[in-house]
């Protein structure tokens, strides 16, 4: 609530009950801090000016005041204990998921999040679909280094540690897309390691489970009209309609491809797009193939079938996560990066 | 600390080892001893980090420690314990002799201490080379088929880190003892000034003390 007043569409949303409780504590701390800031800094300015050298006040020899010192030890102590207790109580709610929570498994790796849904066996990448008003628990592990899963709208976060399971849980009560960040530094593309929680109405969620696609869900807190207006604004900025290659470029950003594949020839986790199309690639087993359309298609849908020499088989499959039209756009883009 | 300044007089004719910023030898000695104690505190904390690591992993994998420690040779460890305790004794005798001004006696005890330290290292060398031969190495370098516990390499990481750091301290100690022997031969010490001998003695007792803890923790895991 605290932020919502400023720019409804752009700012943080309180997307769960816990987020609202959190905002209450936050607001308490903000106003308490404002009070103490005025007390200390205001007092400082007041005393410095009032008792400046040459003022009419008579200086006095004072070395302390036990009553005052006791007071400014006791009052902060009490306040801090209250803050501690409040913070701990809320923290307890934040970390203990209700027993009926829907469970989703999360695997983090440089630099993406993979989600596995136990009941349907589906897998998604960088997008996790959940129903609103139902607790969801994410059980997380890491394949390589430390990562962290942070959903600002739900005010929850947990590190993801290789070799152990950690979890976060939330119960979204605002439908729409909620931003997710990796907040534990994990290397080159740390700042591109983002995901979305896509909170759907229960009916929509059932539909999603049945295979329906939800491609343009508005951001949480945004009405459909606002989302359309924003999309229109973006469309207006791009004077000409987008070429297929440009659409593909946008897709590689949205799908997180660029975290591992560069367009400028630099080597990240995977090979660069630059100069790839139509050229020969040497594979790990020493054989050679030409990077044509079918090779690229296979590399996206079944990445571990042919591993390029010098790279690890770490890419997850995107089969079923990318439509045919999207695939065409991405291939057009890869073709264009010479 | 011996840059005595010509302008300073301290009443009585002062000792050549008295630094200009101290009032008398006693203050200077006290300060040096205090400094050494503080240094040993930092040493305790440094080894303490490794001991904490040991406690954590032993708590996590007690059965692994029980299995892996068996390859360490208790007789050799016990021999080294005796060698080091004896060296502590000879060190002590060396320091008291220096304190009494018995130079040749002190030097003789210090040489025996160095010799015992060398014995310790020779035994350690045989232990280490056996481990190297058997592939009982830290972490990723571990390759031994007889120990089955998958986390066993961690035991050898701790073993080599702890005994290695201790061994490094033994070598440093030998250099320090050698240094005070040379100074002693140049007749720099007297009952009024034997601070370096005393401090090296402190250090050596500390090194022995660390081993007293390492031996049961590493070799005698129940």
């Amino acid at each position: 609530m605290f932020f919502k007043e400023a720019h409804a569409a752009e700012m943080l949303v309180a997307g769960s009950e816990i987020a609202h409780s959190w905002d209450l504590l936050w607001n308490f701390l903000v106003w308490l801090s404002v009070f103490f800031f005025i007390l200390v800094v205001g007092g400082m300015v007041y005393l410095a000016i009032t008792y400046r050298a040459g003022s009419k006040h008579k200086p006095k020899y004072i070395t302390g005041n036990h009553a005052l010192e006791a007071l400014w030890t006791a009052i902060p102590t009490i306040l801090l204990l209250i803050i501690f207790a409040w913070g701990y109580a809320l923290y307890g709610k934040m970390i203990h998921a209700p027993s009926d929570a829907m469970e989703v498994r999360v695997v983090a790796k440089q630099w993406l999040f993979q989600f596995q849904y136990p009941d349907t066996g589906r897998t998604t990448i960088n997008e996790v679909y959940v129903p609103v008003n139902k607790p969801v628990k994410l059980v997380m592990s890491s394949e390589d280094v430390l990562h962290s899963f942070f959903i600002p709208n739900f005010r929850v976060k947990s590190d993801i540690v290789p070799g152990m399971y950690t979890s976060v849980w939330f119960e979204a009560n605002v439908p729409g897309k909620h931003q997710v960040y990796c907040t534990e530094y994990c290397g080159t593309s740390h700042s591109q390691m983002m995901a979305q929680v896509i909170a759907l109405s229960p009916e929509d969620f059932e539909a999603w489970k049945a295979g329906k696609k939800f491609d343009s869900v508005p951001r949480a807190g945004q009405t459909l009209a606002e989302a359309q207006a924003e999309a229109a604004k973006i469309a207006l900025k791009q004077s000409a309609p987008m070429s297929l290659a440009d659409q593909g470029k946008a897709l590689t950003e949205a799908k997180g491809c660029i975290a591992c594949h560069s367009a400028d020839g630099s080597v990240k986790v995977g090979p660069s797009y630059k100069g790839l199309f139509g050229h020969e690639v040497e594979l790990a087993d020493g054989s050679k193939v030409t990077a044509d359309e079918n090779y690229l298609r296979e590399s996206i849908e079944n990445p571990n079938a042919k591993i390029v020499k010098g790279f690890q088989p770490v890419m997850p499959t995107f089969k079923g996560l990318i439509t045919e039209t999207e695939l065409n756009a991405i291939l057009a883009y890869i073709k264009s990066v010479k | 600390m011996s840059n005595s300044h010509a302008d300073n007089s301290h009443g009585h004719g002062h000792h050549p080892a008295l630094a200009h910023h101290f009032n008398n030898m006693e203050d200077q000695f006290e300060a040096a001893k205090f400094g050494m104690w503080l240094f040993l505190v930092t040493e305790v904390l440094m080894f303490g980090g490794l001991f904490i690591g040991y406690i954590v992993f032993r708590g996590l994998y007690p059965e692994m420690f029980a299995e892996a420690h068996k390859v360490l040779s208790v007789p050799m460890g016990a021999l080294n314990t005796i060698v080091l305790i004896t060296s502590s004794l000879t060190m002590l005798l060396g320091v008291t002799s220096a304190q009494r001004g018995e130079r040749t006696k002190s030097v003789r005890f210090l040489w025996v201490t160095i010799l015992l330290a060398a014995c310790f290292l020779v035994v350690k060398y045989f232990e280490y080379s056996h481990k190297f031969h058997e592939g009982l190495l830290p972490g990723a370098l571990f390759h031994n088929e007889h120990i089955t516990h998958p986390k066993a390499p961690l035991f050898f990481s701790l073993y080599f880190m702890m005994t290695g750091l201790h061994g490094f301290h033994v070598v440093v100690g030998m250099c320090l003892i050698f240094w005070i022997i040379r100074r002693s031969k140049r007749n720099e010490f007297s009952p009024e000034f034997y601070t370096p001998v005393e401090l090296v003695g402190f250090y050596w007792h500390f090194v022995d003390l660390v081993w007293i803890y390492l031996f049961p923790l590493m070799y005698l895991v129940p």
Partner: protein
Amino acid sequence: MTTSSHSNYLNHSKGLWSWLSTLDHKRIGLMYLFTTLTFFLVGGIFALLIRLELFTPGQTIMDPNTYNRMFTYHGAIMVFLVIIPAIPGALGNFIMPIMLGAKDVAFPRLNLASYWIYVAGAVFATSALFLKGADTGWTFYTPYSIRTNSTVILVLTGAFIAGFSSILTGLNFIVTIHKLRAPGQSWSRLPLFVWALYATSIVQVLATPVLAITLLLLMMERLLGIGIFDPKLGGDPVLFQHFFWFYSHPAVYIMALPGFGIISEVIPVFSRKPIFGYKAIAYSSFGIALIAFIVWGHHMYVSGQSELANFVFSLLTMAVAVPTGIKVFSWVATMYRGQVRFEAPMLYALGFLELFTVGGLTGVFLATLAVDVHLTATYFVVAHFHYVMVGGTIMALLAGLHYWFPKMSGRMYPEKPAAIAFWFILVGFNVTFFPQFILGAQGMPRRYWGYLPEFTLLNQISTFGSWLLAVGFVYIAIYLWKAMRNGPVATANPWSGLTLEWQTSSPPPHDNFANTPVVTQWPYEYRVEKA
């Protein structure tokens, strides 16, 4: 440097070698000062480049790999090579023995060794710059720091070596304070700067060895793969965080406490009033130092550590705020019924109070468990520790630098440029870092090379602020350099201070005092003459 005719520590002996091999604590102090300020410049340039990169959401001037190295260098250099050694190494070394009425520190050769060990550490750490760099952040979290192919081992070695410098300085100071006080300089007459350095030294001596062993383990991890912190070999990456913060949280107080000491000296002198609550301020330093050792886990609320650990660490962390609050209240109260003057040291002391208050209050947010879950690892944390470290330590360093400049150089700095530079720094600092609180609360993570477009405006304000800060610092460098060469000659006691360093000439003679001083009163005895 100076042309004054009397024999002093600056003209006592001549030539570069007489400086590099000096055992004089004052010269060693100056060498620390110049070296730490040089690294401050280097670290500052990295900071400006970081802010410039963040001027736009995407790539502005560098790619992510370069950016990751920039923030690693900025953090590692500023922490290990600037803020930790700056105040104890430079001002502590120069002033503290004189404040005690001593001729030198207890172990002058060890003191020189500390300096050169620090330089050796710095050489190692910065040599990584010319190789493959280091991209782990200054915290070296495992397992990333084990896996990255950058030359992180050089930075680890550098920090490891520099740590010994810190340990030896702390040890030297403790013995000096115990054994070399002038006649009459009882514990209850010790200046608060000395008390603060004493508390700092204890932390240095007790915490730094743990860092040393941690870094050694991490080096072995990279060289031999010993696996202690590597989950692939059965190790525990979170154990590294425990080890690291066991040192690095107390290290925060190694950075902050000496600054508190400077503020405790400056405020009474420029208020012509005794310090309010001398004992409370002196003891609260120890309270802080003690609690500092048992709160490290508050860096790890979301690291996967247990709920019980979080409960304990949060509660203990709240306890730090109490002695810190006592200090702040006492400093403010000192001005009551004084005669406050606004020379540069006092301006910086007041600036310190403003920034440190914000830093302290936001610290309470982060200590609060539930609140920290959202805020940790965001820009809120970045803003918080810059308010404490820069707003606290660097402002205090600047206060001390101006306060003791006449003593160290024998010359006065110009007051008007100093005031102008102060306002640039105060305003620049707030413009740079306050927006980061808002960014963090909205969720912008730290160590991000790129960010979502909605964060653009606040990031640009922050970058603009960094330029104001740069102007302020460059201006200080210019006028201090000029003043050092040909400023007006300073008297022995330009601020009418009562601590012992003002009872000897400016600059002091080689042996500090012509005759060993005898202390007969409290250092804050600002009696008012009866009218």
